[in-house]
C-alpha cells in the first residue's frame, strides 16, 4: 500500500461511550462529512462480533479507510485497510508479513522513544497522544502541542494527534507538525456527530 495517502481525520470507537450499532451509524455520517479513517478499538470483544462490526463499517463508510486494532486476522477478513498496533501488539514486521503487505500499519505511541521505534520498524504512521486532557484518560494532564513537536523532530512518519482534540485546537497541532487528528468523544458525544465531523474536516482543510 505504499503511496497510499495517510488519512487525516480518524474516528475511533469506544464501546464505553457508544455501542457498536450506534457507532457504525455515527461512522457513516461522519465519513460522509469528511472523516477519512474509522478505527475499531475493541480489545475485549469476541472475534466473531468484531468481524461483524468491521464488515458493517466496510459497507457503511464509503471510501473512508477502516482500521482494526491489534487483530490482523480480523483486519484481513473484513477487507479493512489497515491495522493499528500498540506496544503489546504484533511488531510492524510481523504485521507486514502476516498481511502480505496488504495493510497500512499504524502504531500508537506515547513518547518520543516509541515514535522513533515505530519509524525504525517501518510503520506507515503513528497516533500520538494524549495531547490535551481528555475524558478518555481522566486525571492525566495533557502534554500539549509541544509533545507533537518533539515527536515530529524525532520521527519522520505522519503523526496523527489524539487526546482532547477539538476543531479549535487543530491549527496548533498542525503547526506543531501533526499530519492529522484522531477523535473519540468529540464526535461520539456530539449532539450531531455529522456536523461535528464536518467542523473537524473544515479545520483540517484550513490547516
Amino acid at each position, binding site marked *: 500500500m505504499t503511496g497510499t495517502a495517510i488519512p487525516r481525520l480518524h474516528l475511533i470507537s469506544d464501546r464505553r461511550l457508544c455501542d457498536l450499532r450506534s457507532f457504525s451509524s455515527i461512522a457513516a455520517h461522519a465519513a460522509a462529512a469528511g472523516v477519512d479513517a474509522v478505527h475499531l478499538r475493541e*480489545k*475485549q470483544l*469476541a*472475534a*466473531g*462480533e468484531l*468481524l461483524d462490526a468491521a464488515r458493517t463499517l466496510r459497507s457503511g463508510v464509503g471510501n473512508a479507510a477502516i482500521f482494526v486494532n*491489534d*487483530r*490482523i*486476522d*480480523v483486519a*484481513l*477478513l473484513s477487507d479493512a485497510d489497515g491495522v493499528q498496533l500498540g*506496544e*503489546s*501488539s*504484533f*511488531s510492524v514486521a*510481523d504485521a507486514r508479513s*502476516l498481511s502480505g503487505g496488504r495493510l497500512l500499519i499504524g502504531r500508537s505511541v506515547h513518547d518520543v522513544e516509541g515514535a522513533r521505534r515505530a519509524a525504525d520498524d517501518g510503520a506507515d504512521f503513528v497516533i500520538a497522544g494524549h495531547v490535551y486532557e481528555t475524558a478518555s484518560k481522566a486525571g492525566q494532564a495533557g502534554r500539549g502541542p509541544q509533545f507533537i513537536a518533539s515527536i515530529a523532530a524525532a520521527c519522520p512518519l505522519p503523526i496523527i494527534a489524539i487526546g482532547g482534540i477539538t476543531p479549535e485546537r487543530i491549527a496548533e497541532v498542525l503547526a506543531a507538525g501533526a499530519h492529522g487528528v484522531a477523535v473519540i468523544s468529540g464526535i461520539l458525544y456530539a449532539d450531531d456527530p455529522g456536523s461535528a465531523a464536518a467542523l473537524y474536516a473544515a479545520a483540517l482543510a484550513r490547516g
Partner: protein
Amino acid sequence: MSRVKIDWRARLPESLRLYVLTDRGLSRGRSEREVVDAAIAGGATAIQLRWKSGSIREALQIGRDLKAMCAQSDILFVVNDRIDLALALDADCVHLGDEDLPLSDARRIVGERMLIGYSPPTLEEALDAERLGADYLGVGPVYGTSSKSDAGEAIGVERIAAVARAVSIPIVGIGGITAANAAPVVQAGASGVAVISSVVAADDVEAAACELRAAVDAARRSRT
C-alpha cells in the same frame, strides 16, 4: 526445513488422546513452559496455547517455546482463537469456538497450512462444522467444569456418543474430565480427552498427565 511435514490430519485420532490446554490463572504460579514441559513428559499428545487476553508480544515469546517443545516430541501444537497468532507461530492447528472467527472465514486465511478445530455448542452445529471443513470437534462440557466460566451446562457422555455417530471427523471430549471419569468419554466415541485444571492445576503435572493418558489408552484398547 528438510523434515517432511507431518500429516497431522491423518494422525489426529492419536494426537487427540490427551489434549492439554494452558491456563496461567489455574497453573498455581507455574509458567506455561513448565506446565507444558511436564505435561509432555507425562504423555500429552496435543497442547493448546489459550491466550484469552493480554500482550501478543508475550504470547509470541511463550508460543515460540511451546511450539519448539511440541515439534521436538511430534506433538500437535494448537493456538486458540487468534488466527494471526497461530500463523505467526506456525502452529499445526487453530481452535475456534462459536464466538470466534467463523470456520469458513478461518479456512480462507489458513488454507491447508494448518488444521482447524471447532467447539460446536449443539449437535446441529457439529454437523455444520464438519461440512464447513473443521478437522476435529471439541465437545463439552462433558461433566461440570470450573475452568471455563462460560462453558454452560454439562452435556454428559450421551452427547459425545450422539456427535460421534453424526460426524466422521474425530472428536475430543472436554469439561471436568479426570483420570477417574475419562474412560466413558472414550467409550462413547471420543478419540481422547481435553483437559485444563486436572493437569495444569495438579500438584504433580507430569503424574496427572500420565494417569490421564493411561486411562485414555486403556479405554481405547477396550473399545476395539
